[in-house]
């Protein structure tokens, strides 16, 4: 029984909700079964990271670049990431478009770095993305052939500019990075989902599987999480929970959830039983 075949409605009103046979997530022409992206920062040890990638079945994981430590041995994070996984290098550390571009080019030189998550942050307290610099970096890198996934503050005009600049997805933040507060920007992410013709991937602040499912129910195309998983008591189990919740949220979206109602409505028949003739 292919449950998806029963879906008929559509977010834009004209096509099926499921835009391809297996409801794959498609980014830059590449198909992914999983709609959960895992970040690799902050894990207590690399074994947990490798096991979490496996338990989550994520097909895209983020990594960062950094100067090596000349004094101490450091593990090579790539050795813990299976070869079939798409590496998404972020530009963390970049404070403007130029620095982001430089990091992206370095990543590309490694042979692994064609997919770039642009992250331009010029604020050390809230770690908010700088939308204007993000647009500039997206434009440059897209024109150089990168697959560009910009992380952004969910502003409709910025999202439109990113589409125009050649972004492959738009990645609005749910709430402050690492805050685990969920979608504090829910109303505005919904606007992006409704108006932007690119996959919307909710990134940052997603702290629980229920929050991830909520993003998917809203119509997001995918969710990225890192801090919550990496800092959990059992990251491997939580990674699996996130992946499963994201799937559940996607199915719920496709099944056309009924909306909220202000009043009660019985689920059992209330009339005609026992006392109708009393």
């Amino acid at each position, binding site marked *: 029984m292919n449950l998806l075949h029963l879906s008929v409605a559509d977010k834009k009103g004209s096509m099926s909700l499921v835009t391809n046979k297996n409801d794959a997530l498609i980014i830059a022409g590449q198909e992914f079964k999983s709609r959960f992206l895992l970040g690799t920062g902050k894990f207590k040890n690399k074994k947990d990271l490798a096991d979490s990638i496996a338990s989550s079945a994520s097909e895209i994981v983020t990594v960062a*670049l950094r100067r090596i430590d000349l004094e101490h041995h*450091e593990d090579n994070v790539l050795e813990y990431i299976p070869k079939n996984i798409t590496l998404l*290098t972020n530009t963390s550390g970049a404070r403007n478009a130029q620095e982001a571009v430089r990091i992206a080019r370095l990543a590309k030189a490694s042979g*692994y770095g064609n997919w770039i998550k642009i992250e331009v942050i010029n604020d050390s307290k809230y770690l908010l993305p700088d939308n204007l610099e993000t647009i500039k970096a997206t434009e440059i890198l897209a024109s150089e052939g990168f697959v560009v996934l910009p992380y952004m503050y969910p502003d409709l005009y910025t999202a439109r500019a990113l589409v125009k600049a050649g972004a492959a997805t738009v990645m609005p933040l749910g709430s402050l990075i690492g805050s685990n507060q969920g979608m504090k920007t829910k109303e505005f992410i919904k606007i992006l989902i409704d108006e932007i013709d690119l996959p919307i991937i909710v990134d940052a602040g997603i702290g629980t599987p229920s929050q991830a499912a909520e993003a998917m129910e809203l119509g997001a195309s995918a969710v990225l999480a890192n801090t919550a998983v990496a800092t959990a008591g059992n990251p491997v189990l939580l990674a699996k929970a996130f992946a499963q919740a994201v799937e559940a949220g996607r199915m719920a979206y496709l099944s056309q959830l009924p909306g909220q109602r202000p009043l009660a409505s019985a689920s059992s028949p209330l009339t005609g039983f026992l006392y109708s003739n009393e």
Partner: protein
Amino acid sequence: MKVTINGTIKEITNISHLSDIVTQFCKQPKNIITEINGQIMPSNQWSNTSIKDGDMIELVAFVGGG
């Protein structure tokens, strides 16, 4: 000969090419990315890239990130 590696000035000896720098300074040389004087240098060029006094070298690697 003095070069700057990752922002620190280093006195180096027995080094003629970028490949030697990587061998000597990277405890874990796989997947290392290099810049020399602001120019990205692919790994297949390391062995024919000469090092000279005052060079600014960056040695960069992938790490966990979100």
